[in-house]
C-alpha cells in the first residue's frame, strides 16, 4: 500500500519533526499519497498549525499504490516513542499495510525491530487550509538567533512582541513585575539577519511556548528561518530544509498589549 525507507541521518531529522507534532497534538493525522507524506493540523486550542511534508526524494525508497490521498490518524505519543527507539538503526521503513490497520516502523539493520501503531483511517476528514495573508514584515534570519530571542523572553514572560520597523526587527517581552527583555537585530549590521522587507511598522504579540516548542527542534535542522508577520496577523514561520522536506508553522497572534 505505502512503503518508504529512510537512512540513519534522516531518522534523526524525522524524530525532530515528530517531536514538534507530538507537542502540537495527541493525534497525528497524515495524508499519504504518491506525492508526499503530509501532516497539516492545528493544536486543540486552534492557535497554531504545522504544515509538514516529506516528498519521495527525501527517502531512499518510496512507493504508494492508490489514486487518492489516505488520511491516517494515530497516537502521536507512541509514534514519537517508537521513532526514538529507531534512533540508532541504519535505516527505517515506514509501512502502511494493505489492511490499513497499523502504521509500521521497522528496520532490519543492524537487527530486526518492528513497531506497529494502530491507526484510524478517517476518510471523512478534510485537510485544513492554511492562512494566506499579505504580510507587511518579511524577515529572513538565522534560526539559532530566533531561538535565543525566545529563550530570553521565556525567562520573564509567556508572551513576546515582534516589532519590525525599517531595517530592524525587535523581540520584546515584559511582565507585570516590571521586567523587560529586548532582543534587537539590525540589517545589515547584524549578520543574523539575512534579509528584511518591512512595508510598514508591524507589531504582533505571540505566545512563547508553542513557538519555542517548534523552533527548539527545527533550528537544529535548519540554519535559516523565514519569518512573516503583520499587525495582529499570525506568525508564518518557514524553515529552509534539505531537499524533499517542507516545514511551515503558523501561530495566531494575541490581541493584548
Amino acid at each position, binding site marked *: 500500500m505505502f512503503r518508504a525507507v529512510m537512512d540513519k541521518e534522516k531518522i534523526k531529522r524525522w524524530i525532530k519533526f515528530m517531536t514538534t507534532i507530538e507537542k502540537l497534538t*495527541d493525534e497525528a493525522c497524515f495524508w499519504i499519497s504518491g506525492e508526499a507524506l503530509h501532516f497539516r493540523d*492545528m*493544536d*486543540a*486550542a*486552534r*492557535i*497554531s*498549525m504545522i504544515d509538514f511534508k516529506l516528498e519521495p526524494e527525501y527517502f531512499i525508497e518510496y512507493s504508494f499504490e492508490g489514486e487518492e490521498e489516505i488520511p491516517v490518524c494515530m497516537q502521536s505519543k507512541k509514534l514519537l516513542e517508537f521513532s526514538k527507539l529507531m534512533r540508532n538503526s541504519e535505516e527505517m521503513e515506514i509501512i502502511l499495510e494493505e489492511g490499513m490497520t497499523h502504521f509500521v516502523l521497522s528496520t532490519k539493520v543492524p537487527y530486526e525491530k518492528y513497531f506497529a501503531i494502530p491507526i484510524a483511517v478517517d476518510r471523512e476528514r478534510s485537510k*485544513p*487550509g*492554511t*492562512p*494566506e*495573508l499579505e504580510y507587511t514584515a518579511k524577515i529572513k534570519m538565522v534560526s539559532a538567533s530566533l531561538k535565543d530571542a525566545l529563550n530570553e523572553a521565556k525567562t520573564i514572560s509567556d508572551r513576546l512582541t515582534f516589532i519590525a520597523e525599517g531595517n530592524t526587527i525587535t523581540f520584546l517581552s515584559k511582565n507585570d513585575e516590571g521586567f523587560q527583555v529586548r532582543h534587537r537585530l539590525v540589517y545589515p549590521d547584524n549578520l543574523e539577519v539575512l534579509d528584511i522587507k518591512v512595508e510598514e511598522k508591524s507589531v504582533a*504579540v505571540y505566545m512563547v511556548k508553542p513557538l519555542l516548542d517548534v523552533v527548539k527542534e527545527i533550528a537544529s535542522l535548519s540554519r535559516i528561518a523565514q519569518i512573516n508577520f503583520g499587525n*495582529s*496577523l*499570525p506568525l508564518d514561520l518557514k524553515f529552509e530544509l534539505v531537499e524533499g522536506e517542507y516545514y511551515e508553522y*503558523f*501561530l*495566531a*497572534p*494575541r*490581541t*493584548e*498589549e
Partner: protein
Amino acid sequence: MPKATSNSLCIRCKGYRRLCGLNTCPILERTRSHFRVYHHIKSESVDGSTPPSLLVGEYGYPKVRVMLNIPPAVYGDEAKIYDDPLLWWGRYSLDDIIRFRSRLLASVVRLDIHDPWKLYEKEINISAVSLEPVDSEARLRKKPRPHLRFNAFTKPVGLLAEAEDIRVTSTPRIGWLLEKRIHDDVKVADVVVELYEGGYDIYTLIHALSGGLLGTFRNRKIVPTRWAITAVDSILGSYFRKKIRKAPYISDTLAYTGEYLENRFLVILTPGPLELEWIEAWHPRSLWGYKSKMPSISVLTEDVRGRYEYMDGGYMAARLAVLEYLYNVNRQATVFIYREIKPTYYAPVGNWHIRETVKRMLRGRPRKYDGLIEAFKHELKFFDIPGSIWLSHSKLLRDIRGRRSILDFISR
C-alpha cells in the same frame, strides 16, 4: 470575622468562651467523642461493625499503618453513618462529621506495602469494600486513652490503638464484578474505570485500591489512602477527558454555585477547548491562612493536552465532577472552578465534600451568560473575597481574553 484557633487562645478559652468564633469547640467536641468511644472499650478486645472504613497512612512508607476503623459496640446498618460521604452530603454539618469520625476506633496494624495478601488472608481489605457494614473484632495491645490536645489543626480522627489481631466476623458483600476483578490480573486504570461504570461508587474504589485489591498481581500493593483518592480521581478524570476530546463545545457560558461545610464553589463553563483552572482561596484566619492578613490563594491550570502544573487532591476531586458532567452531556468547555474556604472550616475532613458538592451543583439549573466577563462580573459576588482578587489571579482568563484562533485567518 472569627479569630484563628491558636494554642494560646484555646488555653484562655478552654472551650467555653467561644473566642475563636466557632459555635462549638472542635477540641472539646473531639475529646467528648473520644470519651464516648473510650466508654465502650471495656477491655483490650473491641468489637463493632466497620461502616466500612479503612485508612492507610503514609508515614513510614513502605512500612505503613493500616487502620480498620470500628465504632465500638455499634452493629449492622447503624454503623454506616460513621463513614459514608454519600450519606453525609447535605445532611450533616462539619461538627456532625467530626463527631462521626471521632467515634471510630482505629485498630492499627503495620504492614509492608508489598504485602497486601496479609490483609486479604484476614479479609480486612475485603471488608473495606463491602456494600454493607461488616462485623469486626480487634484485639488491642493496650487500651487507648483519650487526651486533650490543643492544636490549631484539629483533625477529625478517633482513637488509635495498635492491634494484635483483627478479625472480620461477618461476610462482606462486595458484588460479583469487584469479586471477579480482585482475582483478575488487570491494570488498575482499566479496572477502576470498569468498576465505576459498573456502578461502584468512588469511595469503594478508593478503599479497593488502598487495600491492595486492584491491579496486576505483580504490581499489587497497599496504597496510602490520600494517594489512592487522588489516583482514582485522576484515572477517572483522565478517562472522561479522553472521551470528550472531540466533542463539540457547549453553546453558552454557564455558571453554577454551591456551598457546603463552610466551602463555597463556583464553576463557570464557557465555549472553548477543554482547559481548566482551579483557584483555591483560603480566608485570612482560616486553617491554612491563619497567620496571613490577605487570602492565601493557589492557582492551578490544566492545558488542552491535560498537562497541569502540580498535583492537588482538591483539584482532582473537583475536576472529576466537572469532567464527568461534560462526558454525560458530550460537550467540551473551558472550565473555571473556584473554591473559597471560610474561616469556619476549622478542620479538614477530606476531599469528598469537594467532589460531591461540585457534582451536585452541576445537576442544578445553571445561569446563562452571553460572555465570560459578564459571567465573572455577576458570579464573583457569591464570594466574600472580592472579585478583583480572583480575577487578578486568573491565568486562564487572561490567556483566553487575548487569544485568537488560527481559523480566524483561514478563508473557507
